[in-house]
Structures are given as C-alpha cells and as structure tokens.
C-alpha cells in the first residue's frame, strides 16, 4: 500500500531489517514494536522476514493465572541455554479493557539472562485481543524465527478454560496446571485441556501434585484412539510433573517437547501451519476492511440531513452514521454490514444505504 510515514521510508525499513538480521537486537526490538503497533514498517519487515521464517520450533505455554507459566518458561530457558540453543520468548499479559494500560510482569521471573545474547524476551500487552494472545504474537514469532531464534516460547495471558488460540499458533502446546486446582470434572471439561500436547502439573513439590497428575492421566486415558471422520485426531497428551524453581522435571519436559516435534508426522505440522496462516490472513483482512470502511465517503443525503439536524457526526462518514443507526435500533446490524460491504465493492447505490431503516417507535 502506498502509505508514507516519517521514519518508514523504504530505505530506512530495509536498513532496520538488515540490522535485525545481522544480529542487532535493538533493530529487532524496534521491528517488534512496529509489528505490535501495526505500522507500515511492520508490513515491510514481514515481507522481508516471512519467507525466511518457518524453521523455528514454536512452543506455546498456557494455563491459569498463577500456575507458574513464567517460572516454567524461565526454567525452560535455562535448559535450552545449557544446550546452547538460542531462545526467544513472547510473553503476553492482559491489557485493561477500560484504560488500555497494562502491567507486564512476566520478566520478573526471567531475569538471569541480561548478558546472554542467545536469549531475547519480549513482553506484549494483549491490547483488546481475546483468546490469550495479542494480534501481533504470530508476527512477532515469525520475526524471531527469521532472525535465527530456533526456539520461540509463547506464553499466553493467564488462561481460563477456553483461551485455546495458542494451539493454532504453536507447534507444541504445553498446558500448565497447578495442584489442587480442580477435580476430575475439571479434567473432562471441554477447552484448554483438549488442545494440550503436553500437560504439566507444576509446583510438583506441593501436596497433591501427584494426585492431580494421576487424576488427569486417568481422565485422559479415555480419549478415543481414532479420529471421527471429518474431525482432527484427538490428542493424547503426556502428563508431566515439574517444580520450576528447582528445575525438577524440566529436562524431561524439554525432551518431551523435542520428541513430539521429531515424532510428529509432517501432516500434523501442516495442519497447524494452515490454521496459523488462516488466522493471520483473516486478521490482516479484517484490519484492511476496517480501514477501508472507515475511510468510505459518500454523498448520502440522509447523512447530511442528520448532520444538519445535529443528531450525529459532523462528517458524512457512512460507517459512523450506520453505526449510529444500529445503536439507535433504527437499523439491524446485518443490514448495516451488508450495506457497508455493498458500498465497498461498488454494488450498492448511495440512496439504498438506509433503505431498510425504520423510524424508531418512541415508547412515549
């Protein structure tokens, strides 16, 4: 797209990409910011980086708040560094739905690697994105991948029961549970546990840890072996015990992650890749659609009239005016969406934009 922005001229973007690819961490950090902020620089970077990505092992770490995800990620970093494997971390924490602010606290547990160039940790706020990640997570993982980090750990926000998006982003999804956080009924509920490739009962030194692991194993033993036609094959996650602060069980966890990666037939890998591609393209498409619809302008009589009457926005922006009509229950949301699509594709006529609009019955 031919958009210009200071600081993002083609050559500046190229320079920054070159620097990031040659190991300049500040350049990489700035590209990550661009991806988070969805600037034109991010698009330029993704065009350069995306064809180079696809090699890294993406590991999702999810689970309830307080289960020990960050501490476990720190323990995994230690294990990976023992083998001198470069590792990047994307740690997502929630944004406030009210102010847009966030406290990103995952780094507190991951402090030991300040002078280690083989570790790059980046916190991200979810910025209104539901599902446990932020919109930029997948793109950030691709940047790390292209920049040579062959392991990328993606830590989600504290997940409840249904934030399963990470499973479509990572090759291997590790669900972290803590002891005594629920009985067998919790283990048979739909959601998070269904997408786990590996389930970790963390805080293994606490009373009840073994019992929790045993209950999970017992419940998961009933998972059907074969996929029903038209459905993905059911997962048979290993249940492991770890004590993250001491590192106990962490080597076994990493071995299980690696074993999964090498044993997994490429078809499973392929379906994750397809899902991820779909999610990425759809997200960009939705951004682009929003952008273009917000930019729509039309000489719509009714809009002008409404504006003159002082009842709405002063600009004749169909999107804003249609939203106002929906808010006032004068138009249903389906019709409004269809109208916008028609205007976008040029099949709608200005006069018909508000055709189905009805005068709202005043309750008085």
């Amino acid at each position, binding site marked *: 797209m031919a958009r210009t922005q200071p600081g993002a001229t083609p050559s500046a973007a190229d320079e920054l990409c070159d620097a990031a690819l040659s190991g300049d961490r500040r350049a990489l950090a700035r590209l990550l910011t661009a991806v988070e*902020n969805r600037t034109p620089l991010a698009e330029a970077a993704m065009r350069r980086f995306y064809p180079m990505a696809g090699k890294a092992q993406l590991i999702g770490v999810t689970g309830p708040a307080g289960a020990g995800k960050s501490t476990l990620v720190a323990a995994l970093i230690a294990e990976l560094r023992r083998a001198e494997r470069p590792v990047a971390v994307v740690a997502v924490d929630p944004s406030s739905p009210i102010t847009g*602010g966030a406290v990103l606290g995952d780094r507190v547990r991951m402090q030991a*690697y300040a002078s280690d160039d083989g570790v790059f940790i980046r916190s991200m706020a979810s910025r209104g994105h539901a599902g446990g990640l932020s919109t930029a997570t997948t793109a950030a993982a691709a940047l790390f991948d292209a920049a040579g980090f062959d392991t990328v750990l993606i830590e989600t926000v504290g997940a409840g029961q249904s934030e399963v998006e990470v499973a479509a982003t990572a090759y291997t999804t590790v669900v972290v549970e803590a002891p005594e956080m629920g009985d067998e009924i919790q283990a048979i509920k739909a959601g998070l546990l269904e997408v786990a490739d590996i389930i970790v009962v963390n805080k293994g030194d606490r009373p009840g840890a073994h019992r929790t692991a045993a209950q999970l194993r017992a419940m998961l033993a009933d998972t059907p072996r074969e996929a029903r036609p038209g459905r993905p094959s059911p997962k048979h996650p290993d249940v492991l015990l770890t004590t993250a602060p001491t590192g106990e069980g962490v080597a076994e966890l990493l071995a299980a992650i690696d074993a999964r990666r090498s044993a997994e037939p490429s078809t499973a890998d392929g379906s994750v890749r397809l899902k991820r591609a779909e999610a990425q393209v759809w997200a960009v498409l939705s951004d682009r659609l929003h952008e273009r619809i917000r930019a729509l302008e039309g000489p719509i009589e009714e809009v002008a009239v409404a504006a003159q009457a002082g009842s709405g926005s002063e600009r004749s922006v169909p999107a804003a005016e249609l939203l106002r009509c929906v808010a006032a229950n004068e138009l249903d949301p389906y019709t409004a969406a269809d109208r916008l699509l028609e205007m976008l594709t040029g099949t709608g006529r200005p006069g018909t934009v508000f055709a189905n609009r009805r005068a709202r019955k005043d309750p008085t």
Partner: protein
Amino acid sequence: MTDRPIKVLIAKPGLDGHDRGAKVLARGLRDEGFEVVYTGLRQTPEMIVTAALQEDVDVVGLSILSGAHLTLVPRVCSLLRERGMDDVLVATGGIIPDEDVPALKDAGVAAVFGPGTTITEVAEFLRANSRPRD
C-alpha cells in the same frame, strides 16, 4: 492504529528490597493507559538496560530508596547511551536528596519524582516528554 500506549519500564536497581512504591506506580500508570513492564527487585544496570532494549520502551523509571542513586543511575544512563538508546526518557523516584538532583540531571535523568508526587503528575510528565513514536 493511533493513540498507542507509551511503554514504560519500572525497575528497582541495586540492593534495596522495597518495591511498594514501584508497584503502586506501575499500577497507577496502568490506570493512566500506559503499558508498564515491571522487572522486579535487585536489578543490575546491565539487566535494566537489556530489558529496556528488548522491550523497546519509551521510558525507563528507576525506583531507588537505598541511597545508591549516584552510583547506579548514571551507570544506567551511560549504558543506555552506549547501546544507542539515547532517545529513551529516564526518570527516577524514591528517596533522593535535593542536593543530588543536579548530578542526576547531568547524568541524563529527565525528572526526579520524590515522595508526595501524584501519579497524575508522573503520567503527564511522561506523556509530554517521552520520545515521539512512529
């Protein structure tokens, strides 16, 4: 996207173990719409600067109550410059005697927020003085 949140690193350099103030500020700035990275206690200047670089923050806020500010704060400032982050705003808070403020400002600190500063004052200062972002 317009109106992106300003990203702030709140760090506790050195050996003092009192981070109530840092946490209150982190939470207060969250409520003011900032994205706040909090890194915990007992950070070396190197750890703080690495975190600032990887997180690409606009502001580094240092909370010190130990009296070691004249050693630690200039070290953070010079490391930031060394690593090309001279556009990052540095602010400090905690217990800092008035007579030390000029030395800190010479080292590159933009503001020293002592006891009694309101969160709104900090937020307004950061909004007005942090680097313009693209």
